[in-house]
C-alpha cells in the first residue's frame, strides 16, 4: 500500500506549537512585569511630586506668616496678622501629610523632624519679633536680633526643604534609572522572541496548508480509485468484503450486495450472513474455508454455488487473505467472483468435448470396420475370382466372362477406395511424431516408390536442395508421392513429363491470407509440371475429398489423393496451393514452417 501518504509533519507541528505557546507565555509575563514596574514608577513619581507639593505648601505657609508679620509690624494693622494665624494650621496639616508620605523612609522622617524643629523655632522667632516690635515692649536691638535670626532660620528651612526635595528626586531618579535599564534591554529581546514565535507559527501554517493540499489531492485520488474499483467490480462481476477481526465489523462492497441479489447496503452484514446465501450443498465447504483462512492466513480458491432469493443458482469463486493494517489490527480481505457465465460455458464446452470424443471414437471404430470387416469380404471376392481357372473361363459364355472381369474391376476399384480412405483417415488419427528430417531423403524415398511409373513415362524430375525440417516423415513422404504421382498421372500424351521441385525460404508476413502469422518463417516448396493442367477455377475444389475433375474411365482415381495432401500439410501447420494453365502445366505450392 505504497500510495498511502505519510504525514510526519503533525509531530513537528506539535513541537512548533508548544514552543510558540511558551514564547508567547514568556512574552506576556514580561509585559506584565513591565506594566507593574511602570505603575510603580508612576506611583513613585506621584509620591515625589506630592512630597514636593506639600513641602512647597509648607514653605509658602511659612512665607505667608513672614509676609503677614512684616505687614503687621509696619502698619500695625491686625488684618495683616490673619495669614500668620492661618499659616500655623496650614503648617500642621502639611506636616501630618508629609509624615504619612515619608512613613517608609527614616532619612526623610529625620529630615522632617529637623524641618519641624526649624519651623517651630521660626514661629518662636515670629512671636519674639512681634513682642519686641510692639510699641509697648519695643526693644530695637532684640527685634533686630530676632529679625536676623528669623532670616537665617528661614534660609535653613529653605535649605532643608530643598534637601528633602533633592533626596526625593534622587530616589526617583534612581528608580527611573533601574526601570529604564530594564526597559531598554527588553524591547529588542521581546521583539526578537516575538518574531521567532511568529516565524514558528508561520512555519506551522505553511506546513498545515501544504498538508491540507496533499490531503485534498490524495482524497481526490482516493475518490477516483474507489469509484474505479466499484466500476470494475460491476464490470468484472466480482466483489470484495472486509472483516475487521478486532472490531468484528464486516463491510461488503456495493457489488457484493448486487451479486447476492440486493441493492447496496440493503442489510448489515454479520459473520453468518454470507453463509446463508451459500447453496445447501456447499455450506460445509465454504464454512470450512472461512475457518481455514484465519489459521492459514490465506484462502486458496474455493468454488461453490449461491442460492439467490429468487431461487436462482449462481456459481462463485472466492479467495481471501489475512492482512494486518498500519494500526496493527487484523483484517480479513475477501474477493468473490461470479463465474456463472464461465461455468455454464465450461459445462457446454465439456459436453461438446464429450461429443467430439464420442465421434472420434466412432471414427476410430469406423476405421477398424474399414480396415478389417470391409476388406475381408472384398478380399475373398477377389480371391475366389482368382481361383476360377482359365480353363473354366474358356468354356463359359462370352457374357459370363465379361461379368467376371467386371466383378474383378469393380472389386479392385473398391479396394483402392478403401485403401485411400484408410490412408486419409490415418493421416489424422495416427500419432504425430515430429522428427528432424532431410526432405531430400524423403523425396528420394517417394521417387523410389514411384520408380515403375517414372520409368514407364520416361519422366524427368529436377530437384533443388530441400531443407531439413521437423516433420512427420512418412506423411511428408506420402505428400511427395501423391504430388509427383498426380503430375505423372495427368501428364500430356506424347510429352515426357517434366517435374521441377524448388524450395525457398519466405516470411509469413508476405502471405498474410494463407499462412499462420504466429510462425515467422516458412519454406515454400513448389512442384511445377508440364502436364495437361486444369481450369484454375477448380484450384480450391481439387483439394476437397472425393472431388474429381476427370471421369473414372479416363483417369482412374478416388478423389482422395490431394485431400490427403491438404490434410498432411495442415498437420504440419502449413498450407497448400494449386494453380494451373490448362495445356501448359500445373504448380502445387507447399508451405511448411521452418
Amino acid at each position, binding site marked *: 500500500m505504497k500510495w498511502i501518504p505519510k504525514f510526519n509533519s503533525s509531530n513537528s507541528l506539535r513541537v512548533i506549537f508548544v514552543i510558540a505557546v511558551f514564547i508567547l507565555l514568556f512574552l506576556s509575563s514580561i509585559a506584565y512585569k513591565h506594566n507593574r514596574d511602570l505603575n510603580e514608577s508612576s506611583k513613585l513619581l506621584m509620591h515625589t511630586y506630592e512630597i514636593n507639593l506639600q513641602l512647597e505648601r509648607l514653605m509658602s505657609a511659612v512665607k505667608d506668616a513672614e509676609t503677614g508679620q512684616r505687614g503687621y509690624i509696619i502698619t500695625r494693622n491686625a488684618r495683616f496678622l490673619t495669614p500668620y494665624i492661618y499659616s500655623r494650621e496650614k503648617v500642621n496639616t502639611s506636616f501630618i501629610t508629609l509624615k504619612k508620605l515619608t512613613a517608609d523612609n527614616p532619612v526623610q522622617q529625620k529630615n522632617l523632624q529637623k524641618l519641624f524643629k526649624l519651623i517651630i523655632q521660626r514661629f518662636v522667632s515670629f512671636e519674639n519679633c512681634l513682642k519686641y516690635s510692639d510699641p509697648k515692649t519695643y526693644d530695637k536691638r532684640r527685634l533686630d536680633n530676632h529679625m536676623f535670626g528669623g532670616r537665617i532660620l528661614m534660609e535653613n528651612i529653605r535649605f532643608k526643604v530643598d534637601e528633602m526635595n533633592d533626596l526625593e528626586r534622587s530616589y526617583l531618579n534612581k528608580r527611573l534609572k533601574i526601570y529604564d535599564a530594564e526597559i531598554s534591554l527588553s524591547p529588542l529581546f521581546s521583539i526578537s522572541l516575538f518574531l521567532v514565535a511568529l516565524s514558528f507559527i508561520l512555519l506551522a501554517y505553511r506546513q498545515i496548508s501544504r498538508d491540507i493540499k496533499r490531503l485534498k489531492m490524495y482524497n481526490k485520488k482516493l475518490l477516483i480509485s474507489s469509484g474505479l474499483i466499484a466500476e470494475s467490480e460491476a464490470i468484472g462481476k466480482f466483489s470484495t468484503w472486509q472483516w475487521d477481526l478486532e472490531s468484528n465489523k464486516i463491510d461488503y462492497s456495493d457489488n457484493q450486495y448486487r451479486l447476492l441479489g440486493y441493492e447496496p447496503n440493503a442489510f448489515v452484514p454479520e459473520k453468518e450472513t454470507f453463509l446463508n446465501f451459500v447453496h445447501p450443498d456447499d455450506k460445509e465447504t465454504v464454512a470450512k474455508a472461512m475457518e481455514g483462512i484465519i489459521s492459514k492466513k490465506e484462502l486458496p480458491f474455493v468454488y461453490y454455488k449461491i442460492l439467490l432469493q429468487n431461487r436462482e443458482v449462481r456459481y462463485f469463486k472466492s479467495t481471501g487473505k489475512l492482512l494486518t493494517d498500519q494500526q496493527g489490527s487484523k483484517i480479513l480481505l475477501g474477493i468473490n467472483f461470479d463465474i456463472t457465465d464461465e461455468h455454464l460455458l465450461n459445462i457446454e464446452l465439456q459436453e461438446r468435448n464429450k461429443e467430439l470424443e464420442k465421434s472420434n471414437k466412432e471414427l476410430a471404430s469406423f476405421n477398424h470396420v474399414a*480396415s*478389417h470387416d470391409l476388406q475381408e469380404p472384398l478380399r*475373398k471376392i*477377389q*480371391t475366389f475370382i*482368382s*481361383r476360377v481357372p482359365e480353363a473354366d473361363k474358356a468354356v463359359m459364355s462370352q457374357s459370363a466372362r465379361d461379368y467376371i472381369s467386371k466383378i474383378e474391376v469393380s472389386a479392385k476399384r473398391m479396394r483402392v477406395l478403401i485403401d485411400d480412405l484408410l490412408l486419409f483417415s*490415418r493421416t489424422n488419427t*495416427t500419432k504425430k511424431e515430429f522428427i528432424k528430417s532431410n526432405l531430400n531423403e524423403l523425396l528420394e524415398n517417394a521417387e523410389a516408390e514411384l520408380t515403375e511409373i517414372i520409368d514407364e513415362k520416361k519422366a524427368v524430375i529436377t530437384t533443388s536442395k530441400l531443407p531439413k525440417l521437423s516433420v512427420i516423415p512418412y506423411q511428408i513422404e506420402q505428400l511427395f508421392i501423391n504430388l509427383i504421382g498426380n503430375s505423372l498421372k495427368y501428364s500430356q500424351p506424347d510429352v515426357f513429363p517434366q517435374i521441377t521441385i524448388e524450395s525457398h525460404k519466405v516470411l509469413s508476413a508476405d502471405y498474410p491470407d494463407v499462412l499462420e502469422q504466429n510462425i515467422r518463417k516458412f519454406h515454400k516448396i513448389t512442384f511445377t509440371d508440364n502436364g495437361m493442367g486444369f481450369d484454375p477455377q477448380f484450384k480450391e475444389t481439387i483439394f476437397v475429398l472425393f472431388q474429381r475433375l476427370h471421369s473414372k474411365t479416363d483417369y482412374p482415381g478416388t478423389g482422395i489423393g490431394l485431400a490427403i495432401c491438404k490434410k498432411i500439410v495442415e498437420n504440419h501447420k502449413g498450407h497448400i496451393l494449386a494453380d494451373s494453365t490448362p495445356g501448359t502445366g500445373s504448380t502445387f505450392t507447399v508451405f511448411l514452417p521452418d
Partner: protein
Amino acid sequence: MQKNALSILLADDDEDDRLFFKDAFEEIKIQTKVDFVHDGMQLMDHLMNPDNKLPDILFLDLNMPKKTGKECLIEIKKTEHLKNIIIAIYSTSSSEEDIEDTFIQGANIYIKKPSDFNTLKKIINEVVTVNWHYHTSGLNRDNFLLRLK
C-alpha cells in the same frame, strides 16, 4: 508322414481363409504338414499340449475371437519352450500400428492377406523356403513386412 516334412500351423477363425491356405499348400508341392486352429485359446491349448509336435512356422491371424493374435504372440514369446517358433503374422490389417506392435513383440514376418490366390501361393512359397536361421539373424524393420514384387 515323413519326418522331414515341414510342420505348419495356421491360427485363423475364418473358414474360407483356412481353405485358401490349405489349397495353396497343396499346390506348392513342398513336403509340409499343415494343421489348423480356430482361435487364440485353441492355439495356446494346442501349443501347450505336450502330445502335439511344435510347428516349425506359425501363421498367426491377429483378429481372432476369445484371444487375439497379439495376446497369443506375447504369451508365446514369454513361454520358454515356445519362444523360438517362427511366427508369421497373417492379417487383413496393414495398419502401421499393428505392424509396429507385432515387430516389437518379436514376430518374424508380417504378411498382409493377399486378395489373389496366386499371390498367396507365392507368399507361402517364399516364407516356407526362406532360410529362417539366416533371416532371423538379419531381422530388421525394413524387411519385416513381406512385399512381393
